[in-house]
């Protein structure tokens, strides 16, 4: 299996010309010129999003010995002195490559606001449409040579806050390609998770010459219509067609096909949508995609529902979810490392908030933004540590509280970006990547 999947030097696409896509995409002469692209100097990011608000006590901040800890035991990790929950044994072994932040603290206990806050770094307010982290980071990190969109979102669960997943004022060019997993195969025990992007191939009834001619006519029609009618919807339409055409003609779409991967590796990630989604994320990064978000919100690894929202039967549910999370996360870290990709890939693990230390009447835990955990690994991160701590009963942050804004600033710095760099918002005001007054946490950075 080659280390880097093929990339095509597909040239630049400007303005409304769809013909640009056709010319460099199909004419054989130019195709033969597919030069080896210079290696990308930008870093990449993978966001593992746990929708519903995962319990910190049952994952990265166990409280064995206290009644709030419930039945969850703590286990040793590959970092002496650091223990995490027994639900994550494989992750415990790669702890030396992780930085666990136990002191996340916000005031947002509402799924919608908290999901938006964690995804954009800003609270939803007024008219400004803040872009999701995948959009604003991929804009800075993007690899012009890559024929795939710079931002891919795998099985997102958007119901809590659709706005939290969109490009906001950065516009449609920064929208993610949303990929959903499907189960292929007939019998249940031989079903495979697959991530095919449908409709990538031109119909067999249409010749190449016809396709070119069609795009040329379409270009002219779009140009005439839209030059008199400015507006987002028109721009978005042309943009998406340009990106779609580029994808169609690119070998890069092989990244979505997991069949070439070693069976044992596929098993190690876990034969479920989340596990295979993490494997897909690695492949996409190798192909030149800059930001991949993979969602885990149910115990079969699928995207529907808010499985981590364990108001009842917290222990059983989290255990089941961790059964999916643990192998996938640990394998992803190891796999990236073995391929020499971990140094240039930041892996972020988080949800929208944590869960109440005090167990409720339904053996559940409710929303708890006051003291919870997120985890960083890879590019730019000083690994093998915990940052911040909580009290024995889990209700207070005792050291080094971490704000969302500082987390965002730290993520930017880890990716070699200036967190104060600004974009122009839809009301004209410049908006920095991480909110004003935020600062990266030096202790977390290598």
């Amino acid at each position, binding site marked *: 299996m080659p280390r880097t999947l093929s990339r095509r030097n597909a040239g630049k696409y400007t303005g409304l010309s769809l013909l640009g896509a056709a010319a460099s995409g199909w004419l054989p002469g130019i195709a033969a010129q597919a030069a080896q692209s210079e290696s990308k100097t930008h870093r990449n990011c993978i966001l593992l999003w746990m929708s519903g608000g995962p319990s910190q006590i049952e994952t990265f901040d166990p409280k064995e010995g206290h009644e709030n800890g419930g039945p969850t035991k703590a286990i040793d990790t590959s970092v002496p002195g650091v223990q995490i929950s027994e639900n994550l044994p494989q992750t415990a072994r790669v702890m030396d490559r992780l930085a666990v932040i136990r002191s996340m603290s916000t005031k947002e206990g509402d799924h919608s606001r908290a999901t938006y806050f964690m995804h954009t770094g800003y609270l939803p307010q007024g008219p400004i449409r803040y872009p999701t982290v995948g959009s604003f980071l991929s804009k800075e990190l993007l690899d012009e040579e890559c024929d795939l969109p710079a931002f891919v979102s795998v099985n997102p669960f958007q119901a809590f806050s659709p706005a939290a997943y*969109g490009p906001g004022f950065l516009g449609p060019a920064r929208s993610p390609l949303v990929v959903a997993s499907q189960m292929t195969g007939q019998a249940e025990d031989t079903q495979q998770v697959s991530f095919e992007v449908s409709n990538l191939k031109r119909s067999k009834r249409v010749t190449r*010459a*016809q396709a070119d001619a069609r795009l040329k006519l379409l270009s002219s*029609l779009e140009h005439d*219509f839209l030059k008199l*009618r400015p507006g987002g919807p028109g721009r978005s339409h042309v943009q998406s067609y340009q990106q779609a055409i580029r994808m169609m003609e690119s070998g890069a779409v092989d990244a979505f096909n997991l069949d070439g991967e070693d069976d044992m590796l596929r098993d190690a990630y876990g034969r479920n949508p989340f596990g295979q989604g993490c494997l897909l994320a690695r492949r996409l990064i190798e192909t030149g995609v800059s930001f991949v978000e993979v969602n885990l919100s149910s115990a079969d690894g699928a995207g529907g529902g808010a499985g981590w929202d364990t108001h009842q039967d917290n222990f059983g549910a989290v255990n089941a979810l961790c059964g999916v999370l643990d192998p996938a996360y640990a394998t992803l870290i190891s796999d990236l490392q073995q391929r020499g990709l971990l140094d240039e890939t930041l892996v972020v693990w988080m949800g929208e908030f944590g869960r109440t230390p005090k167990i409720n009447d339904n053996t559940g835990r409710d929303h708890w933004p006051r003291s919870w955990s997120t985890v960083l690994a890879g590019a730019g991160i000083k690994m093998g540590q915990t940052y911040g701590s909580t009290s024995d009963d889990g209700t207070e942050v005792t050291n080094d509280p971490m704000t969302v804004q500082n987390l965002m600033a730290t993520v930017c710095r880890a990716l070699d970006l200036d967190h104060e760099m600004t974009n122009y918002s839809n009301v004209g005001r410049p908006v920095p990547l991480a909110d004003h007054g935020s600062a990266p946490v030096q202790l977390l950075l290598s």
Partner: protein
Amino acid sequence: MRYVLLTVIIVVAGDRPATAGPPRDAAAAIDRLFQAAWDREEVTPAVPAQDAEYFRRLYLDLAGRIPAVSEIRDLLADESTDKRLRVVDKLLDSPASVRHFTTSLRNAFIPQANSQPQFRALIPGFEAWLWQRISEGQPYNQIVHDIITTELNVSAGPALLSTTSPDAFFVVRELKPENLASGTARAFLGVRLDCAQCHDHPFDRWSQRQFWNMAAFYSGFTRSADDDADNPVMMQNMTEKTDVRSIGIPGTEDVVPAVYLTGLEPDWEDGSTTPRQKLANWVVDSENPYFAKMAVNRLWAQFFGRGIVDPVDDFSENNPASHPEVLDLLAEEFINSDYDVKHIVKVITATDVYQLSSIQTHASQEESSHFARATLRGLTPEQFFDSTAEAVGYYQPYRSDNPFVVDMNSPRAQFLDLFRNNVESPLERETTILQALAMMNGNFIDNATSVDDSQTLRAIAEFPAMSDEQKLDTLFLSVLSRRPSKAERRRFGDYLLSGGASENPKSALADVFWVLLNSSEFLLNH
């Protein structure tokens, strides 16, 4: 019982003039208000839309689809001066229009059925109920009143899924008082209470207490502990106590009484009505400051892509109306017409402001809140599919046993899934890469644009007496609802004449058809 309530409502509204004047009077008043605003803000409006532009927009906004080829041909040829208004009347009486309004209200009242798969199956029953009421011409206040006070046979279990009733309003909110309070406030009053559920609203004036005052009206439900939490549609053993008048705020010791959002307290001495009935009466009352405004704002948004208050259901001090006098005028018209939706539609479509072109001629037209130009806006998935079906001549099999059954594998269902958009506003509609791929290469469009498989194409290709020019005209009229311009005649005409890339006249027609169907002009409303 219902009779008594109806009389009560009419009596309360009795001190207002009971009838509204002719639509053109209100339309003219609205136009005057806009002109004054434009003068004040130095805005230059766009020119009036030409017929083709206007009729396409009107059909989409009223009937939820583009006009058929024969319809647009006739309209463009019609020389009468009142044709635009006559078409409005004709469309308002059509089944397509009933369907479009049904879908629109269903999206507003049970949005959860779109975003949460477990509730999808409730759509047919809810739509069937709405359809009945709308086609019978039931006034809007009555419809809303009946939703809030519905008898609720949720314990019918699976049978619920094909019952014609408004019960879905309650089921998608899982009978939870907090969800019902939010839903009632948002859908019927345009007030987004949600944040106030857990704490005083951070930037609006609603307190947590007020939130739960509203929730108290819905606090009589109890569900059995056996209920399957994963399957909230199946409710067994649901009971409702109608004497509950207060609710405890979760996480606190407080118990608050049922009080209307405006602070008015219900008259509990009138023991003949249940809390839900009391709430319904207050919601639709002509003195309710939100009800009529929310309804007309939503109607306005249906025709303009955004309301006078935008987002359409977010009336708040931080989100003022762009033209409050217009909103007031329409709300008053609505009440005076006895909440007749058709009347408001006639008013809106008779205004000059609705009939402006989408072609921008001045920078001041760019800001959507000026309403100085018709905007580029997205179609709903239903509008898009139905228009595509119309353009390509695809007719869906009609199930007579239950016309509302959703066949998840039908082309329509698949299209709707793919084109369902998460963006709130039609003005911000985005085409995704997956949608672009489906339009370019997907089976449906491929079949529709293949000379062998497409009825429409074959009919045009093989029609004996049609010249190339007429064939081009028919293609443009079928898809874009207009004739080609001179430049387009040259460009596309030459292509057809040459037989196109495959040197085959039929393929060339297919190519042109494909191009038109993939254009933003077709995908968008404008």
